[in-house]
């Protein structure tokens, strides 16, 4: 696995999570957008197709990680929110064989002592896509807002467990 160097000489890894199809592709779309914006010069950009617990392999304690995932928080489509890690852990439930999602993987990583030194989790509110191209606009706006948010994150690292910024 190659690692990009951040502006402060720090290895950043930005990971888009989800399925490449069926409306759960916002993490993938974000990575494409960031790559086109040149973020691959300063960070390793990855997409992971529903990794489950395999996400932990990408969360080494000495790494600097930004996770981007689609979310359903009842917000307007395309809303971008940084999620507080403490809040995510509260929602983590006992994993079942088929339901070991982002919250459970992060809780498991934390229990194993493996959370990155700097970790941000960003959610993009899912929305409907119309056959006539509806949905493209909110996606563009979401990616634009996300780019600004990620750029800021890469300049000002904060400690794990920070409060959400919305």
């Amino acid at each position, binding site marked *: 696995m190659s690692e990009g160097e951040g502006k402060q000489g720090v290895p950043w890894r930005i990971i888009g999570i989800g*399925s490449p199809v069926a409306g759960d592709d916002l993490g993938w779309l974000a990575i494409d957008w960031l790559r086109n914006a040149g973020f691959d010069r300063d960070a390793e950009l990855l997409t992971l*197709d*529903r990794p*489950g*617990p*395999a996400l*932990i*392999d990408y969360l080494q304690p000495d790494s600097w990680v930004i996770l981007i995932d689609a979310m359903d928080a009842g917000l307007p489509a395309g809303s971008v929110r940084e999620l507080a890690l403490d809040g995510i852990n509260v929602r*983590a*439930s*006992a*994993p*079942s*064989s*088929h*339901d*070991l999602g982002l919250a*459970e993987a992060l*809780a*498991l990583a934390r*229990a*194993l*002592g493996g959370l990155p030194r700097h970790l941000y989790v960003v959610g993009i509110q899912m929305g409907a896509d119309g056959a006539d191209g509806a949905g493209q606009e909110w996606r563009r706006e979401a990616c634009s807002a996300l780019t600004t948010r990620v750029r800021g994150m890469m300049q000002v690292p904060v400690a794990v467990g920070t409060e959400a910024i919305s």
Partner: protein
Amino acid sequence: MAGVEGTLVSEQREIRIEVPVLARVEGEGALELTASEGRIETLRLRIFEPPRYFEKFLEGREPQEVLDVVARICGICPVAYQMTAVQALEQAFGMRASPYVTQLRRLMYCGEWLQSHALHIHLLALPDFLGFENGIAMAGKHPGAVRRGLRLQRLGNDLIRLFGGRSVHPVGMRVGGFHRAPDAERAAAVLEELKSVLPDAEALVAFTASLDLPDDEQDFVSVALRNENEYAMYSGRIVSDHGLDLPVEDYLERFQESHVAHSTALYAHLDGKPYLVGPLARLNLNHDRLSPPVKSALEATGLRLPSRNMFHSVIARAVEIHEVVLEAIRLLEAYRPEDPAHVPMTPRAGVGCGATEAPRGLLWHRYQVDAAGKVLTAQIVPPTAQNQARIEDDLKCSLEAFGLHNDDDALRLRGEMVVRNYDPCISCATHFLKVRVERR
């Protein structure tokens, strides 16, 4: 378990427990039992998740669409559904997969057993036996065990991804073979990883056998595929330990599906009686087909087979992990890419059946197709549906043996442990656990 709610109506000597969801089991359902004078009078495993209608969705679909649709039945065992469907369609078309393709399919299937069993043992079953609420709580005290499970699971997914393009809902399979064979370099990388985890896989057999498992002997019928040349996974005849031995296409002659009022999933019976499918049934019926190193590891545990203790399922899964790691190493060492990695599809009207061993047990498909290969009718019998009646029988025996004098939390926990032995996928069967106990 989170969210336990309870009401006690002691004046009427009746206790009711509501548990919103059964932890560490996939799907939604409920367990209801009525007991009197220390005996269970009625026990129902209620499955109320709405039917998913996959068999109806498949009507009118072309062969490749079938493989894409059936993969969506389950996120953990999509390979099993694809393998079984492709067998049935090829039989309907009068096609026979080449030995090369058959070996690659078995190799890919090894990946699914590895990832499914590794996850079940380490995150779902072990907390029961080591005294933790769940795998996350267990991880802080037993990080080595959890990391071992995650590593084995990831490797299983790597193997699926090698042939399927991705590990969830893979897309590499087609009627006649695979869209393309993976590069030798990528296969070699997975091979090296498999070799590196072989000691872990072998040690897992002894580890699971050393667990303090409940002693709960019961009488039941084991059913599985049996193959003359290998530990049955991808193909074989359907056999039982009570003399059953029939070809896959004759399944409906002896197995019956039926509705019961308390479940949206169909029940399956063998000659009118419950039966067991899954890792323990397979091990009971096929332990003589294990490779020599696995036989040695198993013999060293002292486990006597056939086993009548469903809690030995965790050992059976570990044995099968050892077997598939060795088998995948053997197959990958012989692997050479071929182009094309399939034979042309030759659709024709007909009927075809397929059966494979999904991680949770026997999976059976039947398709009637038209001259273009489009599906006219489809029938899918998943492992969890076949195990439903056996789970109910097991719960009756286990809870009575455990003792109904135990408090409701203890009964609930024991009941959940019993159910988890089957690693049920109610999503596949169509889904599961509230527990309601009434004592009179």
